[in-house]
């Protein structure tokens, strides 16, 4: 899928969510779903497999998100999967999140942590990132047990790795 098409879908998703007055909710739900897809190759494969009937793929989406996400989110995901763009959903969602943040003059800071952050920690982290980079950011937390401890923050192409995994890797490289 081309970058233009991804941006077009992201724009359409943003417009629909905004029109429904559920931009924040839809954006958050799509972000979680996109993370789940990236972490689950089998699910991503099923949703993007053209040999699987569209109805079957949409039924999988319905089974996963039905009752767990808003109808708008469910409808957008089902639309993309039905159009044969299940494999590009993580990219579409990422573009949507960046577009939404940009509409509020913010950058997206994706933060990976082994445990969930409290609201206070999230707020203070956003302030710290803004102080460090000079950019107002919106935090998107991804729970990643492989981080072990600490945080990994990515703003655009800039990565700030303060994870225990990173430190253990440094120890291993120093010893080897």
């Amino acid at each position, binding site marked *: 899928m081309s970058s233009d098409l991804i941006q077009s879908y992201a724009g359409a998703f943003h417009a629909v969510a905004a029109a429904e007055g559920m931009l924040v909710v839809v954006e958050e739900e799509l972000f979680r779903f996109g993370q789940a897809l990236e972490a689950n190759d089998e699910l991503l494969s099923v949703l993007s497999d053209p040999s699987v009937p569209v109805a079957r793929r949409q039924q999988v989406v319905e089974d996963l998100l039905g009752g767990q996400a808003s109808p708008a989110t469910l409808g957008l995901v089902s639309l993309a999967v039905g159009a044969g763009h299940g494999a590009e959903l993580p990219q579409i969602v990422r573009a949507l999140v960046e577009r939404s943040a940009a509409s509020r003059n913010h950058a997206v800071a994706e933060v990976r942590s*082994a445990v969930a952050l409290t609201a206070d*920690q999230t707020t203070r982290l956003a302030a710290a990132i803004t102080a*460090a980079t000079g950019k107002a950011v919106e935090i998107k937390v991804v729970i990643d047990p492989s981080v072990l401890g600490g945080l990994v*923050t990515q703003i655009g192409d800039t990565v700030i790795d303060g994870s225990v995994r990173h430190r253990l890797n440094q120890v291993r490289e120093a010893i*080897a």
Partner: protein
Amino acid sequence: MNGLSLRILASEAAHNSFYGNKDELIWGTASFLIIFAVFVRKGVPVVKKAAAARSQRISDEIANAEADKADAEAELKTLTSSLGNAAADAEAVVAEAVARVETVKVDLFARVEADVEASKQRARIEIEASKQQAFADLQAEVAAMTVTATNAVVIENLTDAVKSDLIEQFITQLGATR
């Protein structure tokens, strides 16, 4: 004196006290002389010729024998000379063979020494490489064990409180970065 003369003389001697009949004596003597003369005239040359021929034959045979002897001696001399040459040739061949063997021996020793030295060099390189590899393996193993142990200790101590502290430390340090 032939048999006939003897018989006449014997017959006459029976009738004569000493010489018998004088005529018989004359005739007998004349016959004897005639026969003797014929003998001398005809027989002696034949005998002489035969003797001369025999003598010549013996001389020829002696000459042939001398020639054969000379030939034999010449042959003997040739053979002796050839034998001498053959012995000299044999000695030259043996000397050449000995020299060649000596050369081959020297070359062989040099080659063996070179091979041995090369083998030693290869062995030294292989030993050094094995030593380095063993050291590297040991180092890697120790490093892996250290990392494994460190991971185990760190993960075991990563309680929720510690994880929260780590997040706080990150936020604090990041906020302090300007």
